[in-house]
């Protein structure tokens, strides 16, 4: 078994024989011509033909992968006619009497090297485009007809790097995936592989050897590994992953864009939990309706000192603008208990889960809280923000936190800094105290989100970090579920919404129960969105609701 490691640039798993892409020809003919005028005409004809071919490719790409893919070839058409590129060819032919193939090659290399030397990854990757158009024109001059893959069975295609025209001309039905020794994340192999949903690994370097041609290979584009002659166990593991990905893809195809609505028309919002602005793409890929919990702790955990207002502002702004107007619930700092940060210099506690944590720290150290609130309100101008406070046990805590929000808004007004007037303020319900007085809390906030992990821990007196508690730590415990029901009812009495953002939200065994209770939103990891949507769409609420409520509330 040989493992080749590269950079995964397009997810997916595929298995098949490794096939090395064969280019039409190696060396470029180089000689002196007698009739320079005719040679120039020969170039002009080849250039025109290249532009025509690229036009055909553009149409093909448009059909397969959309306008953006087509634009690539349209740009190539223009590059064929670039003034500097053409002038260098003309000089080589007219002044030096060089043959057209060599003149095109030299001019292309000259431009390609200049691009390759550029620092910016995007621009240096354009060297491949120039080489590609040169190769095309030379191919036409030399009378080469570009071919596909000479194999009867589908293959995993290996190459140094594939030029865009090569990628688009490939017979897609013959390709299971790509492995290249060179390339970058912005290379065309990567872009087209992603567009077409085929796994691809790039930058394998000299690990990718021609002697491997014909060997059975399994590639995992998500992990960036290609395994040759995989042993049975590895093969089985990867095939299982392939099957899961396939199912996921199928689910996505069926459910993307569909509402989260039961057979009898009861709708629920499905949002996502994230911990970093980098997590937004999976939310959108999995069709999350918004972000129900953005844990802001990462900003603090990634820093050696208190993160500045500007640093936080940029992170919040990025998430809000990337979500394009969909609701984003950002939870204010929730440290303490299992999440400790050194520069906070929190005193050691006997019982940190019952100690100085989350909102308690924020209210005791208003300067830290103020910085975060300012960053949040400033970012609110860039999307639909909701702010959520964690670890509430009393109404006064919320009132004090809201007062700070008002102070921050007044400051921003005075400084002339814009913010949104429609920022909702809500709280996490994760202590039994908050659940029991949720009728009162509902009067002072815009929404509730139930943190089931902590709510279970505090309700059942079971430390969530203690793995030995096993059967005693039961999140399906009726005490927890009855509290959730109480919270949802109290929320609705005051006309506010109630969601769940703990692990339990994604528990498919409880989906019907949550729907019966009237939970308005479930916030789950991006991967859980579609299975949950599927579950909701399969449910006939009227048929199960009364029975589930009776079971929960009965003797």
């Amino acid at each position, binding site marked *: 078994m040989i493992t080749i490691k590269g950079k995964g640039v397009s997810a997916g798993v595929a298995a098949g024989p490794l096939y090395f892409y064969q280019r039409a020809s190696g060396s470029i003919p180089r000689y002196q011509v007698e009739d320079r005028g005719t040679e120039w005409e020969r170039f002009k004809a080849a250039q025109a033909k290249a532009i025509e071919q690229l036009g055909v490719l553009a149409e093909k790409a448009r059909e397969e992968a959309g306008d953006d893919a087509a634009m690539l070839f349209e740009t190539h058409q223009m590059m064929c006619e670039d*003034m*500097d590129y053409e002038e260098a060819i003309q000089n080589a032919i007219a002044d030096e009497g060089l043959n057209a193939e060599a003149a095109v090659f030299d001019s292309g290399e000259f431009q390609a090297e200049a691009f390759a030397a550029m620092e910016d990854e*995007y*621009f240096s990757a*354009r060297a491949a485009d120039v080489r590609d158009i040169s190769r095309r024109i030379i191919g036409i001059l030399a009378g080469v007809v570009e071919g596909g893959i000479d194999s009867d069975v589908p293959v995993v295609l290996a190459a140094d790097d594939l030029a865009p025209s090569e990628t688009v001309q490939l017979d897609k039905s013959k390709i299971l995936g790509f492995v290249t020794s060179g390339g970058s994340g912005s290379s065309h192999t990567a872009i087209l592989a992603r567009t077409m949903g085929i796994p691809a690994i790039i930058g394998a370097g000299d690990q990718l050897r021609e002697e491997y041609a014909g060997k059975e290979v399994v590639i995992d584009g998500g992990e960036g590994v290609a395994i040759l002659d995989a042993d049975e166990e590895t093969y089985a593991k990867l095939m299982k992953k392939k099957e899961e990905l396939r199912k996921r893809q199928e689910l996505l195809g069926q459910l993307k864009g569909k509402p989260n609505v039961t057979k009898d028309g009861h709708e629920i919002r499905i949002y996502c939990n994230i911990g970093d602005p980098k997590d937004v793409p999976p939310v959108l890929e999995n069709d999350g309706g918004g972000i129900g919990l953005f844990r802001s702790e990462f900003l603090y955990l990634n820093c050696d000192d208190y993160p500045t207002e500007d640093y936080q502002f940029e992170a919040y702004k990025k998430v809000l603008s990337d979500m394009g107007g969909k609701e984003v619930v950002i939870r204010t700092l929730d440290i303490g208990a299992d999440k400790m940060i050194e520069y906070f210099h929190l005193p050691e506690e006997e019982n940190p889960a019952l100690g100085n944590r989350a909102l308690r720290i924020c209210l005791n150290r208003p300067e830290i809280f103020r910085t975060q609130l300012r960053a949040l309100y400033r970012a609110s101008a860039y999307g639909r923000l909701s702010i959520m406070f964690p670890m509430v046990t009393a109404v006064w805590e919320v009132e004090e936190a809201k007062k700070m929000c008002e102070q921050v808004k007044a400051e921003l007004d005075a400084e002339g800094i814009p913010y949104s007037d429609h920022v909702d303020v809500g709280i996490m319900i994760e202590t039994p105290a908050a659940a029991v007085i949720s009728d009162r809390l509902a009067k002072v906030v815009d929404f509730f989100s139930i943190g089931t992990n902590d709510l279970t821990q505090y309700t059942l007196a079971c430390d969530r970090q203690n793995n030995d508690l096993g059967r005693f730590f039961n999140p399906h415990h009726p005490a927890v579920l009855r509290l959730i029901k109480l919270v949802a009812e109290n929320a609705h009495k005051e006309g506010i919404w109630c969601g769940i953002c703990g692990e339990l939200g994604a528990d498919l065994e409880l989906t019907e129960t949550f729907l019966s209770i009237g939970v308005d939103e479930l916030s789950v990891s991006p991967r859980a969105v579609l299975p949950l949507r599927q579950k909701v769409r399969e449910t006939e609420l009227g048929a199960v609701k009364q029975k589930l409520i009776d079971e929960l509330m009965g003797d």
Partner: protein
Amino acid sequence: MKSFEYTITDPVGIHARPAGILAKKAKEFAGSTVTIEKGGKAENVLKLMGVMKLGVKQGDVVTIRVEGGDEEAVAAQVEEFFKENL
């Protein structure tokens, strides 16, 4: 001569696509030479590869100059193009 400055907002900078469209557009400006300058280096916008090799990135300030022809009208058109595409 007519000139204006422009700050690039496109995340990739002046990449192949807008450079290509600009080069195409510039062919219609008979009698006008349009150049783009960044950090002391100027390039005719007709030269697609040359413009890309300026390596103009997001946040860079470029100076666009129009010489000859209907400078006023061409400059207005080019400026509109930058605002829409870059």
